[in-house]
């Protein structure tokens, strides 16, 4: 499958799944999906581990730090929010 078709298909899957997310969870959806966009971390790791150019390595290192903030912070804060949405005992 070409990268293009993959991209388009993923967009459609995203739309189908996410349009059913209730308004109540829109903020966790945003912070959670934002954490997923930190997947750039994979690319950053590759660049940071390169032995070729010194430049590339340090740019990659900076990318790695930012992507990791995004990933760790994003998932943790989403977890914190969702913790609050636990079913409360109804009176």
């Amino acid at each position, binding site marked *: 499958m070409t*990268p293009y078709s*993959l*991209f388009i298909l*993923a967009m459609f*899957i*995203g739309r189908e*799944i*996410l349009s*059913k997310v*209730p308004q*109540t*969870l*829109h*903020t*966790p*959806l*945003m*912070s959670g*999906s*934002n*954490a*997923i*966009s*930190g*997947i*750039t971390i*994979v*690319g*950053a*790791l590759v*660049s*940071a*581990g390169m*032995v070729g*150019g010194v*430049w590339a*390595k340090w740019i*990659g*290192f900076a*990318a*790695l*730090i*930012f*992507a*990791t*903030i*995004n*990933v760790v*912070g994003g998932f*943790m*804060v*989403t977890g*914190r*929010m*969702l*913790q*609050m*949405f636990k*079913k*409360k005992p109804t009176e």
Partner: protein
Amino acid sequence: MPSGLVNGLYLFSAILFIVGLKRLQSPVTARRGNRLAALGMLIAVIVTLFSQEILTPIEMIGGLLIGGFIGAVLAMRVQMTAMPELVAAFNGFGGLASALVAAAEIIPMVLEHDGAAGIDSGVFPYLSVLVGMVTFSGSVIAFLKLSGKMTGNPVEFPGRYVVLVIFLALMIASIVWTFIGGEILLCFLILAALSLIFGILIVLPIGGADMPVIVAFLNALSGLAAAATGFVLSNTVLIISGALVGASGIMLTNTMCVAMNRKFWQVMVGGFGGDSDEDGAGKLADGRTITSTTPDDTAIMLSYARKVIIVPGYGLAVAQAQHQVRELADVLQAQGVEVKYAVHPVAGRMPGHMNVLLAEANVPYDSLFEMDEINHEFESTDVALVIGANDVVNPAARHDKSSPIYGMPILNVDHAESVVFLKRSMRPGYSGVPNLLFFEPNTRMLFGDAKDSVTELINEVKAV
């Protein structure tokens, strides 16, 4: 590690992201969904660490530790009321990371091949830098606006549209230039700088009322930046995840626009609403005036009501009054009053802002109602208690064709028997539009800080 296995595991990560996001369809399964997505990310990171020829593991581990520490501290320390600016900041970090990865890919290629290579990977490194940088600088401005470190008013400058179009043209030109033999590194740096400024220019004119749209839009961009980086690296998991996040952000952007009856381009043109400090008049030209009330009068109204609907808005977030509001609802319920919450989709500064705040105060999510679910219930409501909301209940949206908010779906609080507004002053809402509902005979205004007012209400209701 064989590349087939690596790709298989990447695909597995992507599937975990999809399943994780699907679980967000209900508050009951959402926490597990978040954990699944985090697990997917962990797998992707571990696979990358093992599949690469790790020659300098110190940088990798060091980067992961530093970033992880900063992220964890930010996530644990943030107040729920500060969530919009944190989400904006994280968006920015994601965009910057994508742009940097693209730079790390293209710069060595250029240096090794005397500025002649880099064309093999096509236009994607440039797209990645463009979208990543716009996301980054746009998010920085959004962060500054949302956290109150700079004015929430639209910052407008003459000839804005012309400037934006020129910038866009220059950005495209710098990409085209590389393909017709320009110095690649130079073009690349010019493009990065132009994109950085462009991001600032598009968010500066956005007024407070449109903030939820722009936060959602930056969310979409951060995903698209990751996807563009995926095209650069021909990495499936990046493409799939980036597309998912892009779809999510676009969906939210669209939902917010629909909820405000505004087209996306109208938002981008900017200039709508701000933190006006100007006091509105307490009197209309035709002589109608507002009726202000006191906490004890309001407490009596509430105690003798059968049904009360609470309408929260941004003012509640500013005053951090969510816990007091929950307590007031508890006290009323203990006296047999039916209490519900009506949440407008654009109440607050980001999608779902009010829901998060009220959840923090332990309001059960099944007593929060969306606009369409609850709007018919105002007819049978004795008191609509509007706390720090304004535009989302302004009837001008229904009939005043000259109003900037005309056509925006609103909560029908004016159908309730009586309406009480908790407000700090007479200033208009974020849209800057005056609210005629203040002057209706069945409307009462309770001025003061939302937290103080609600605390007084609790005491008075207990005393009734």
